[in-house]
């Protein structure tokens, strides 16, 4: 089988001493970031990009990927022990995880979330390996019109799945798209919206937007709402769930993995839905739904597995189509571009070592995380006691050094401060900024594909919905339209709100 030969190649790359070390480092940083509330993977990856300049591309991506899925593990620790989600995706884990901790089963909750995540991670790795080749072949059939339609659909997905108002999310996507046009036009070389600032003619660096709007704005928000950290004082207890609990968890883990892996493949950040969907499902099919919210282990096992499966399968749109499904993947595009790799279907052919090495490293990373998380839990709990007044200046400092080092240019640091202020204003106006970053990253590609499609169709704008000649593109646009209509129906809107409130 091709897949086994490919995975063997991947393990050959991932199992070198250097790459194991980088994978471990990434997982450690990721867990750290996940454990600390108020420090997200987006800001961290943006912060650490310059550090990866000196590495080879394979090592750099292995480390960055480790940070991303490591953060998913770490987030659940905080959710269970402190009753605040360390990451956005562990919101659901708080409900039953912390109740289990109150009931003296903190160890079992941590244990099952680590075991479930590990299982989900293994399955997701296989899913990526199995789906990558066929999807890549599909991608090769895509012309500019299909790519444009696919990106439209991805952005619509991101908008529908964003929290809060759909219209406001659309506004954010448009802001992102328009910010991406700043700088020299690729075709004509004309300076666009630069106001004759030479610094702007290369365009706005996406790290400055990411760090300003996510890193700095997040700090400003945290300073306004000083959280009370109620770290659990009870003993954590045995980390292994007992037989009864294990039996109760098997099916939720399987279902959660399936749900999470499927939703994660969707373009437009489907991964965030995984834990919610899994929790709702478990609650619905449980014999006694009233146990949920009072420490039901199914409510930890399912969502935690879904969360990790989704985090990993969201690499699929990036690796096969070159389209990032969420903000973290958008940063991975940046990391690849810095190393001269254009993400897309050609990566698998031209750089099989990179492609399969990264996939193999995910499995190794999951194994490491199991080891990092379970026996070392005490270390992470101590970290939770670092006061925020020391944490945030350190984050600021790392950010400053990081942004400066991207181009060795202090101007970038000033731009980032500006975007920090803009991000803070957006928060105050009730905008969510994740769709903006996604729009910004897709903007340049979208414009290029749009212009190419229109050129090829000789000015005929109906190419995108031409059912006869371009059925794939027409289908993608149709899905996007259906999504928009569905999301605007009052009954669905209500349901969507309750999903996010829960």
């Amino acid at each position, binding site marked *: 089988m091709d897949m086994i030969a490919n995975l063997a190649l991947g393990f050959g790359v991932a199992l070198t001493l250097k790459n194991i070390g980088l994978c471990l480092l990434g997982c450690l940083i990721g867990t750290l970031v996940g454990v600390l509330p108020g420090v997200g993977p987006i800001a961290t990856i943006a912060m650490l990009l*310059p*550090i990866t300049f*000196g590495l080879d591309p394979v090592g750099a991506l292995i480390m960055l990927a480790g940070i991303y899925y490591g953060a998913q593990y770490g987030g659940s620790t905080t959710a269970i022990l402190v009753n605040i989600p360390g990451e956005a995706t562990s919101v659901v884990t708080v409900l039953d995880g912390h109740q289990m901790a109150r009931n003296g089963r903190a160890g079992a909750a941590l244990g099952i979330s680590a075991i479930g995540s590990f299982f989900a991670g293994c399955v997701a790795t296989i899913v990526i390996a199995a789906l990558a080749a066929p999807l890549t072949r599909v991608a090769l059939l895509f012309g500019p019109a299909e790519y444009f339609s696919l990106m439209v659909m991805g952005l619509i997905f991101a908008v529908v799945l964003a929290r809060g*108002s759909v*219209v*406001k999310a*659309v*506004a954010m996507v*448009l*802001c992102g*798209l*328009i910010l991406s*046009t700043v700088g020299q*036009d690729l*075709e*004509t070389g*004309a300076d*666009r*919206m630069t*106001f004759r600032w030479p610094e702007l003619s290369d365009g706005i660096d996406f790290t400055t937007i990411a760090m300003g709007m996510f890193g*700095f704005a997040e*700090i*400003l928000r945290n*300073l*306004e709402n000083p959280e009370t950290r109620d770290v659990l004082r009870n003993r954590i207890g045995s980390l292994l769930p007992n037989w009864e609990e294990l039996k109760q968890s098997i099916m939720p883990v399987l279902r959660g993995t399936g749900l999470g892996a499927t939703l994660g493949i969707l373009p437009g950040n489907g991964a965030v839905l995984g834990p919610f969907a899994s929790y709702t499902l478990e609650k619905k099919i449980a014999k006694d739904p009233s146990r949920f919210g009072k420490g039901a282990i199914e409510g930890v096992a399912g969502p935690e597995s879904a969360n990790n499966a989704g985090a990993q399968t969201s690499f699929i749109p990036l690796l096969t189509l070159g389209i990032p499904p969420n903000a973290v993947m958008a940063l991975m595009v940046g990391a690849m571009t810095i190393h001269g790799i254009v993400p897309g279907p050609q990566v698998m052919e031209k750089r099989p070592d990179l492609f399969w090495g990264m996939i193999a490293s995910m499995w190794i990373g999951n194994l490491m995380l199991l080891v990092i998380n379970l026996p070392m839990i005490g270390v992470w709990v101590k970290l939770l006691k670092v006061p925020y*007044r020391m944490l*945030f*200046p*350190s984050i*600021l*400092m*790392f*950010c*400053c*050094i990081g942004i*400066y*080092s991207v181009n*060795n240019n*202090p*101007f970038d*640091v*000033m731009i*980032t*401060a500006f975007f*920090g*202020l803009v991000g*803070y*204003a957006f928060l*105050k*106006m*009730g*905008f969510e900024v994740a769709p903006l970053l996604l729009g910004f990253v897709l903007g340049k590609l979208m414009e290029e594909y*749009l*212009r190419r499609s*229109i*050129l090829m*169709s*000789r*000015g005929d704008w109906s190419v995108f919905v031409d059912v006869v000649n371009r059925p794939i593109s027409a289908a993608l646009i149709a899905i996007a339209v259906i999504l928009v209509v569905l999301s605007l129906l009052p009954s669905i809107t209500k349901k969507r709100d309750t999903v996010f*409130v829960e």
Partner: protein
Amino acid sequence: MQEDKVNTAAESRGLVKSPQDMFAGLFIVAFGLFCLWASSNLTGGRGANLGPGSFPRGLSFLLMAVGSIIIVQALTVVGPRLEAWSIRGPVFVLGSVLVFAATIRGTTLNIPGIGRTDLIPPLGLIVAGPMTLVLASLATTERNWFQTIVFAASMTAFCILLFKVALRLPIPVAPWAGW
């Protein structure tokens, strides 16, 4: 929590039912207008050949349309009030970042009539670091000067060791001493 906000906000409402959305919509429309103006010097395309101005201008119009929808919503659907802005956080946090940017390699301004003038000499990480850290610490009201200074000094030392010594990033540490 969201519910409370909406309920308290619903008590006194005149024309504008959701001040937060009103502000948001106005901002988006204004931003759309600004982009339209900023891209007005670019040539749009004709027929099959889209020019550099087509995409930005199209987006500007879309932005204004979406902003108008938000404004209409703000006039019809009851929503949250505008939240108060804090001054302390943004001033010290973003201020400390600007100080870092201005001092790490120094600042040179091109003042008309005088020419290039060095406003701030290059100070390097060894000075910019502690300044940034102490200034940022002022963003919280908790104050412990001794702790802050020890923290600023050790954090700077850690950053120099990590970024300059271990990772060899070309960041100036003490340019006046040639490092």
